[in-house]
């Protein structure tokens, strides 16, 4: 049995984000991190590994430097890592990305008692689309927004969060689950884990390695295989600054209240 965790390296949008004059993101000036929800996905896999001794495999698609993130995942306790990286994969939207990741996961091999786990969404795009799209391409049942995962033999029970409560959903392996941050608290890398990370296998799947998969075709991957196109990107204008009221005492508050009253806001 193994668990395949799909993870992504993303710019850290919680810090300073720089935008180029042409409206694109100045990625060079930004820190990269492992996408936060994906850390919860990896932790969920490692927890099952702690209990069952199963193998944990991490997979990503991205430029070569994303391999550094995979080493961190290996240091946290994953056993093997794969990176799908090729010029042909560039410019992919979520549809094309899921084709490539599904092909990579096919190549790794999904067996009867395996589970694929993803984060719910990545903080760069916030789409939450790639997980379900991988599931569709691999013909796996999907359970998204997982806040609790229980495994009993080949039966998986997930508490799937809704805005106004939750559902309990049952399925059999193999299946795909997407995780939210409420699921767990990701562990840190251990010293011995960091030491071992460099002796664990990290494999690159280039275009040649994946091209024989039926999912991989010029019409379904990369920019030319992406159904969506960006018409334009832009930064919103700053709203004009309002009035900074003088002082911060009761008189200031009375002044504000009277303005609100005059404008029929209260």
């Amino acid at each position, binding site marked *: 049995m193994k668990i395949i965790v799909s993870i992504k390296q993303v710019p850290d*949008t*919680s810090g300073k*984000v720089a935008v180029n004059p042409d*409206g*694109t*993101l100045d990625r060079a000036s930004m820190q990269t991190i492992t996408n936060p929800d994906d850390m919860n996905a990896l932790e969920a896999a490692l927890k099952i590994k702690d209990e069952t001794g199963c193998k944990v495999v991490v997979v990503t698609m991205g430029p070569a430097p994303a391999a550094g993130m995979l080493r961190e995942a290996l240091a946290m306790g994953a056993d093997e890592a794969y990176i799908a990286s090729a010029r042909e994969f560039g410019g992919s939207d*979520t*549809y094309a990305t899921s084709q490539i990741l599904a092909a990579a996961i096919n190549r790794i091999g999904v067996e009867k008692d395996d589970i694929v786990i993803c984060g719910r969404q990545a903080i*760069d*795009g*916030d*789409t*939450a*689309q790639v997980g*379900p*799209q991988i599931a*569709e391409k691999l013909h796996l*049942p*999907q359970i*998204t*927004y997982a806040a609790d995962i229980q495994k009993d033999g080949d039966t998986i*029970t997930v508490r799937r*969060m*809704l805005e*106004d*409560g939750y*559902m*309990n*959903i*049952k*399925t*059999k392996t193999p*299946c795909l689950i997407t995780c939210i941050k409420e699921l767990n608290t990701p562990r840190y890398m251990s010293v011995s884990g960091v030491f071992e990370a460099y002796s664990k296998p990290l494999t690159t799947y280039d275009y040649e390695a994946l091209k024989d998969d039926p999912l991989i075709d010029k019409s379904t991957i990369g920019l030319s295989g992406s*159904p*969506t*196109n960006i*018409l*334009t*990107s*832009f*930064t*919103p*204008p700053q*709203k004009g*600054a*309002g*009035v*900074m*009221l003088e002082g*911060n*005492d*009761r008189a*200031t*508050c009375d002044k*504000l*209240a009277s303005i*609100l*009253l005059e404008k029929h*806001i*209260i």
Partner: protein
Amino acid sequence: MNSNFNSSDIGAFKDVWVFCEQREGKLMPTDFELISKGRDLANELGVNLCGILLGDDVDGIAKELGGYGADKVYVCNHPLLKVYNTDGYAKVICDVIADLKPEAFLIGATNIGRDLGPRCAARLHTGLCADCTHLDIDMVNYKEFLKQASTLPADRIEKLDTAVVLGQKHDVSRDLKMTRPAFGGHLMASIICPRFRPCMATVRPGVMKKNAFDQAKADACEIVHPAFELNESDFQTEVTEVVKAAKKLVDLIGADYIVSVGRGISKDVEGGIKLAEELAAELGGVVGGSRATIDSGWLSADHQVGQTGKTVHPKVYIALGISGAIQHKAGMQDSECIIAVNKNDTAPIFEIADYGICGDLFKVTPMLTEAIRAAKASK
């Protein structure tokens, strides 16, 4: 799914459809928002607006959708569709889409819509844009929107009638222009799906304005039962239980007044929340919070305003001790009136506030509550 279905045969697709989500046999507020927006888009395309509603014996709630603008509602009744399940819903929706071929398909970006949308788009081989906050067909409206909402120079906006798609010039006038925030709200992008249909979008709840309900239109709305097949063997997952949250969740999206707290309450979390609750109660509003307050466990997730929380546009938004990170601003900057209280006079929240008070929220908030009470009493 109809094996002849070809998502690239653009000319074969017609009409705008909205997936109308029901929970426990009740329509969701998002349904009315999307039907209202879908009405505009259908008018701009000169086609019908149709709802598609899945459930068990839900004909009775379908006509209400007509009151907000639907010409027709496709209703799919089946005991196995009573509660949302990815397998059943994706199968029926994809099968009906493959038969009837709508050109645009809108889904509320709820936890259910965001599970269903990508699964269907992948099966249909078409594009899906997530969590849209603005939708256009008409180029005049779209350009006007960009003039207001972007810093793009006018000459670049004027050139957006065509896009280069696979090296060819493509006229975007009949494409749905789907605009959404990315990178935590730092950037906005307009997405098109030029080569495939239906063009699919999930739409952020609370963003599209609901039309006024029109009983005559509701009465005139046509109910249609499209053919579909569904069996237990189509299911790989089983929903064993649906549990409603015990606590009543805060309705940020429907609120006219929101008082939100941020990291500034850290020195006395309970006290800070209590002050916010008192101010909110005086205004007849509710309490929200920034991501920091939710991540720290001070408020439950239903209170979160921002890119990763809810988008709100109340009459008054009062930010107490919120610095105003872009990710927070993305969820509240369209509020009609923004009031900020913060100790730090350089906090970015003041850049978008209509009225700012530089001071300690623990001192200012109770005085503001009193001042508003007194002002209302003087009316």
